[in-house]
């Protein structure tokens, strides 16, 4: 529930932290379901805001994007720092993981240069202790001069104290006297020089010392701002920067020097040579061979669960919708004009059925994905698969979404959220529709025996293998052409393994599923209703409808693929709503009654369809069926995730072109061989 409008918050807190510090666990634990998901103004990154009460004070908690630093390298980093400069919260709560304290303090070192009071939440002290690392909280607090609160957020421990410290600081900001990091001696005069040049002309809201430091680090955004705010000083500034263009290495090194001083007395590390539990698990999970076996086992478990729980639940739900609920609506609308009852019962309700049949599958997939992500395993799949994803222009993180795509493309597309870089995310989204999902495999399994007889299993294998090869080629080509090569670098943290948090996973499932129903669901229902109308009007049977007319118009193009029969084209077009629809449409158009009910009728249909085509045409039909257009649910998911109609359109165009080219090649070559 979003109750943010109820009362203006009295205390605004921001939650910052590097990845893998348990930030979402803390955010969820503090705000529960009182969360609001929006967008950062003008950005494609999600903004999460939540509210809670503390001692009668209404607190707002803004979840900043997870970032390793505050340079302007990524959109997330820019968002975090623009927010802190432009609308500073009362206090920033910055989370660090006790097990990776030194590295996590890098962000603290950067935050301390901004004029906002900080509270440090030292999270996962239990995981750190299990790995032999102990942190003396009060020693760290004394060194930093910043309140430090010990947490085990997963078990809710320390959260109240954390909020207490943050609210205290918000009410008494004058008590904040941190030990700020300083640059190394050799660069101090430079910094003073830059500060003098910026004197009184620093961009609005930018503290001059921070702006000078960022300039010296070669920060492009800050340079742009300074050029505007101090145009006459820019030449001098620029001269200093050009002469010291490698200063950023020293500044970063200086931050780690500062960190080393901060933790020297506060951290007890495991003795050298002691193998910690994470390294023991990684001997298997991140092994080049056993890692693949582990990954396959995880996938098998995931798909097994989906079939055991998601499948039956989906069938039951869509059964109710297409059965008794449809009947009920039909009776209700008995007095209404025929077209109205048609649009609602056959169009809208069918669309709702599509949405509902995907939801249970999504829930199971998201639960599995959330679990694997939360315990720290997803990064290992990326590590193990990186060498194979290499030549697709992708890196390891794209592997999980693509593999999930075999079950259903929708969670595959939504799973690309785990990829930070937008370019890689988009490319992965464009490739997901080439992964043969279960809906397409069902059509394949139904038609292949009639088309290929005893050769059917081999044809199946060739088609699925072909699809994967096509995905590889498209990935390779798209990377070269659209994204101009330059595979994104694979540099990724491997977090320590730890026990999962059910609340985090539960809210992850809830948020993602609800987002799908709300955004993609609406689109699916609308498109389903339109497709129904197109297949029904103006004539009464599909042959006389707009879709039928379109099918006939496309016959010349279809003929190139051996699909000169408009009925085959209409069947393919109808699979846009759901891939398995093509069988039902063929059933109507070839007059074999309802397909799939009786085995004999089904076999009869497949034979009738096979008779309408040459073997080469049949092969082309299946190739096109396997590659052409993502289904409407996948398309809606692509639109939702990319937040771009352009990329959604690109996916449509790409799949259409690939399907057509492949169809023509398969038919023409096949005809020559016959």
């Amino acid at each position: 529930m979003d109750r943010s409008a109820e009362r203006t918050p009295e205390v605004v807190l921001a939650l910052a932290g590097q990845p893998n510090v348990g930030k979402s666990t803390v955010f969820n634990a503090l705000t529960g379901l009182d969360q609001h998901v929006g967008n950062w103004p003008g950005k494609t990154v999600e903004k999460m805001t939540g509210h809670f009460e503390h001692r009668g004070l209404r607190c707002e908690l803004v979840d900043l994007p997870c970032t390793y630093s505050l340079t302007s390298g990524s959109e997330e980093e820019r968002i975090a720092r623009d927010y802190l400069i432009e609308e500073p919260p009362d206090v920033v709560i910055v989370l660090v993981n006790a097990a990776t304290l030194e590295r996590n303090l890098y962000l603290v070192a950067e935050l301390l240069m901004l004029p906002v009071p900080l509270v440090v939440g030292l999270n996962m002290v239990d995981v750190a202790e299990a790995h032999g690392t102990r942190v003396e909280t009060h020693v760290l607090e004394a060194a930093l001069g910043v309140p430090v609160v010990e947490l085990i957020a997963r078990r809710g421990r320390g959260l109240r104290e954390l909020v207490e410290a943050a609210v205290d600081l918000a009410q008494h900001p004058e008590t904040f006297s941190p030990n700020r990091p300083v640059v190394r001696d050799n660069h101090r005069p430079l910094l003073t020089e830059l500060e003098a040049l910026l004197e009184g002309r620093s961009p609005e809201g930018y503290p001059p010392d921070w702006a000078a430091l960022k300039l010296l680090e070669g920060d492009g955004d800050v340079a742009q701002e300074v050029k505007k705010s101090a145009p006459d000083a820019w030449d001098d500034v620029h001269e200093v920067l050009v002469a010291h263009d490698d200063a950023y290495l020293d500044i970063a090194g200086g931050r780690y020097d500062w960190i080393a001083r901060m933790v020297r007395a506060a951290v007890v590390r495991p003795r050298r040579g002691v193998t910690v539990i994470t390294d023991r698990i990684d001997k298997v999970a991140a092994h080049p061979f056993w890692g693949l076996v582990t990954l396959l086992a995880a996938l098998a478990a995931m798909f097994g669960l989906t079939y055991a729980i998601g499948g039956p639940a989906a069938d039951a739900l869509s059964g109710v919708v297409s059965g008794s609920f449809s009947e009920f609506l039909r009776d209700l609308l008995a007095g209404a004009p025929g077209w109205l009852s048609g649009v609602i019962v056959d169009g809208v309700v069918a669309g709702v059925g599509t949405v509902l049949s995907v939801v249970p599958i999504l829930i199971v997939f998201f639960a599995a994905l959330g679990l694997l992500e939360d315990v720290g395993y997803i990064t290992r799949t990326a590590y193990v698969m990186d060498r194979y994803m290499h030549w697709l222009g992708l890196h390891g993180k794209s592997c999980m979404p693509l593999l999930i795509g075999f079950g259903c493309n929708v969670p595959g597309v939504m799973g690309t959220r785990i990829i930070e870089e937008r370019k890689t995310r988009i490319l992965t989204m464009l490739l997901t529709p080439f992964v043969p999902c279960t809906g397409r495999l069902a059509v394949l399994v139904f038609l292949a025996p009639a088309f290929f007889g005893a050769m059917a299993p081999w044809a199946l294998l060739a088609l699925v293998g072909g699809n994967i090869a096509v995905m590889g080629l498209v990935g390779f080509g798209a990377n070269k052409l659209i994204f101009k090569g330059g595979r994104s670098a694979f540099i990724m943290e491997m977090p320590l393994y730890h026990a999962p948090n059910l609340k985090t996973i539960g809210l992850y499932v809830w948020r993602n599923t609800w987002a799908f129903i709300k955004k993609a669901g609406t689109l699916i229902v609308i498109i389903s209703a339109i497709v129904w109308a197109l297949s029904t009007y103006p004539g009464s049977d599909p042959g006389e409808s707009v879709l039928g007319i379109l099918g006939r118009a496309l016959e010349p193009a279809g003929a190139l693929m051996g699909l000169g029969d408009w009925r085959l084209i209409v069947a393919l077009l109808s699979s846009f709503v759901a891939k398995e629809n093509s069988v039902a449409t063929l059933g109507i158009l070839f007059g074999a009654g309802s397909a799939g009910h009786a085995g004999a009728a089904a076999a009869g249909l497949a034979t009738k369809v096979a008779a309408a085509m040459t073997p080469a045409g049949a092969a082309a039909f299946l190739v096109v069926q396997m590659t052409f257009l993502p289904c409407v649910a996948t398309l809606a998911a692509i639109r939702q995730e990319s937040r771009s109609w352009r990329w959604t359109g690109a996916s449509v165009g790409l799949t259409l072109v690939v399907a057509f080219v492949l169809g023509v090649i398969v038919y023409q070559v096949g005809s020559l061989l016959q």
Partner: protein
Amino acid sequence: MTSLAQLPPHSRCVVASLPRARGIADRLIALGLTPGSEVCVLQNWGRGPIIVEVHGARVALGRGQAARVTVEPEPQPAEG
């Protein structure tokens, strides 16, 4: 000059220089790989990415990136 990609598992070293590409250098820095940082190689199979430990955290690097990080052997440890 030795690169990080050439080091066998369990070896320790100190980062000497980073790739020139600023985008990649920034990401390495943010994950703790600055010149002067002590690194321990945890996994290196001779092909594919490697895993190192640096500033108390584990970081996976593509082989291409690791090959462009130069390193020097670790100075003798102060304690026994």
